């Protein structure tokens, strides 16, 4: 009676071991769509808690963390089986988070509570909660792990957290509705997007002062609709790909000159993005059109749209081995 088990194994291997994957959270379907990077097709759909948004893998890819916002939990899933292993105490309405380089501490934005929660993923306990501005969302940790950032959408600030003391050491104003933050260039710069302000502010990390600001302008689209949200960097941090929300475009920004070089038309209300392994392709989540656009990084051309669930939000890369 070994046959059925063997068959299961074979199917299981087929679905996980052949190609790298992009995992996409579907905010209004309570599910994850798994895209096979080789075939560019959805090969698996996995149920999650309610309103999944932020998603990130552990550094060794053994588990995947999912912000199930309306379940008030961060779920820890075995990516092989799609089974929820356990929930982490996350505080209310976790929207977005970032895993510390120590692979152990999650910094979670609790959108409804104006709090950043720090959770120890090993002991599954809350280390501390830090008061931040209204509607925290964007989260980042510096590469050396010393600074964590929370951006708050209604307070319009980047809050700088000293991860040793877990306290704020600076608060810097940005434009309206900051959504996403990333440390770049070995942690010397912090980039923060402002959705309603329509800008990305670039801070010098050493002094926490703004050193540049990027504006976006697309022909025939009213500036009010050009709303930067998620962004990711190409190899060597030379260029940023910036999702511009309801303008339905992704901007390619030269990270040295801070100039926009190109706008690429993708799906509707483009929200977050994720690269494949060698960063030759980038995958964008398009909330309103319910699909993912695959963009070729070198030619800066959209290659394909892949239908996923309703309101795709976050995306995370998973390698095969």
């Amino acid at each position, binding site marked *: 009676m070994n046959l059925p088990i063997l068959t299961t194994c074979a199917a299981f291997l087929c679905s996980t071991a052949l190609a790298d994957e992009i995992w996409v959270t579907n905010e209004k379907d309570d599910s994850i769509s798994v895209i096979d990077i080789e075939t560019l097709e959805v090969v698996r759909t996995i149920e999650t808690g309610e309103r999944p948004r932020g998603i990130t893998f552990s550094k060794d890819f053994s588990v995947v963390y999912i912000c199930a916002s309306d379940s008030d939990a961060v779920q820890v899933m075995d990516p092989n089986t799609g089974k929820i292993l356990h929930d982490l105490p996350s505080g209310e309405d976790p929207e977005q988070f970032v895993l510390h380089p120590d692979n152990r501490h999650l910094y979670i934005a609790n*959108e*409804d509570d104006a709090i950043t929660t720090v959770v120890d993923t090993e002991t599954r306990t809350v280390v501390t909660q830090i008061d931040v501005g209204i509607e925290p969302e964007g989260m980042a940790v510096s590469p050396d792990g010393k600074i964590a950032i929370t951006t708050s959408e209604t307070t319009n*600030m980047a809050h700088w957290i000293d991860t040793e003391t877990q306290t704020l050491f600076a608060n*810097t104003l940005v434009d309206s509705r900051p959504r996403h933050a990333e440390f770049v260039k070995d942690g010397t710069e912090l980039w923060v997007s402002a959705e309603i302000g329509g800008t990305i502010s670039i801070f010098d990390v050493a002094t926490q002062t703004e050193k540049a600001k990027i504006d976006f302008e697309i022909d025939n689209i009213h500036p*009010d609709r050009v709303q930067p949200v998620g962004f990711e960097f190409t190899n060597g941090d030379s260029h940023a790909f910036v999702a511009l929300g309801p303008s339905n475009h992704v901007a390619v920004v030269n990270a040295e000159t801070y100039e926009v070089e190109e706008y690429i038309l993708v799906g509707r209300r483009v929200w977050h993005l994720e690269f494949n392994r060698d960063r030759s392709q980038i995958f964008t989540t398009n909330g309103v059109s319910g699909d993912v656009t695959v963009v070729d990084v070198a030619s800066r051309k959209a290659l394909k749209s892949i239908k996923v669930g309703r309101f795709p939000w976050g995306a995370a890369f998973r390698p095969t081995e």
Partner: protein
Amino acid sequence: MLRTRLVSAFFGVLALGLASGATAKVDVTVHYLKQVVAPPPTLSNLDPIPEDLGLRGVELGLEDNITTGRFLGQTYALSVTEVPEGGDFIAAVRAALTSGSLLILDAPMAQVLAAADLPDATDALLFNAGAADVALRSADCRAQVLHTLPSYAMKADALMQFFVARRWTEIALVAGDRVDDQAWADTLETSARKFGLKFGARKTWVFDADMRRNASQEVPLFTQELGDYDVLLVADAADDFARYISYNAWRPRPVAGSEGLRPVAWHRVVEQWGAAQLQSRFEDLADRPMLDRDYAAWAAIRAIGEAVTRTGSSDAATLRAFILSDAFELAGFKGRPLTFRTWNGQLRQPIPLVHERALVAQAPLYGFLHHHNELDTLGLDQPESNCTAFEN
């Protein structure tokens, strides 16, 4: 008798770390004054108007401001005055002006004008969060009064854009016989003509029968005389009879205006653009959904907060200048930045078109273009406004 209370808000700034290059400490006092108006009797008591309408919105906005302020060394205090029916609103305004120059008014147009025309109010900054009258944004505008509640004209234009988009070109209207109903009806009619729609029969609702019992008999006959049309507008400012029109009209046509498809400043069905967060914060505070005047009061105190954050000042003239400048923008959970019209002080804002259970569309609708800002296709655009008080 006036009821005044002070919600003070002095949050510690210890251990929070002030913003880099933090500005000097600023204390901001905002006065919220509400004229309680007894609602006219209505046929149904199913949906009473919340007594704390408006107030809860300003309280939520205060919390938002306090949270931001504590990172900047800025504190906010709110003074609330509710003037009962028949009370002396102007005395209350005068009293408020002795201790502050930032006022949010939730009152009918006559009181807003009387307040603005007080000598002490010349250098104050007043927000109108309760009167939708078009005249307040036109010939009767005042330089120191900004409007966060959308005007009737903005709401009417939002509906008409939807009708144009759906090609519902022939319109009939039933209006109540109260002054507000007729004003709303006139605005709808003007707007329909502006958008090139055919405005047909208009009837005034003068029945005094109890429609809970006999709507099914009266309404078909009453609406039979309207002839044919694509959509039936109902203008019923007090929410008196409109609910009895749906499904009882002679012709099977959609109903809009005060019933059916309604243009609003805010409604619980607005969920996109981060609105779900504002909705849940409001529900936690007020135990009820956020309504138009709550939103207008919230937007007013948030506009003050945003201007204080960016200017580091609590001076009314400085704040007014900043709010009317290009640098100002308010994130109002409606999908695009909200700004103020420099010609009449009206807050530009998208208008959700809703029915009780879902958002149907949000105006401005796709394809309605404007040479500066599509939001100015709603309400009084610069050439349409007779306001001159804002000219320097």
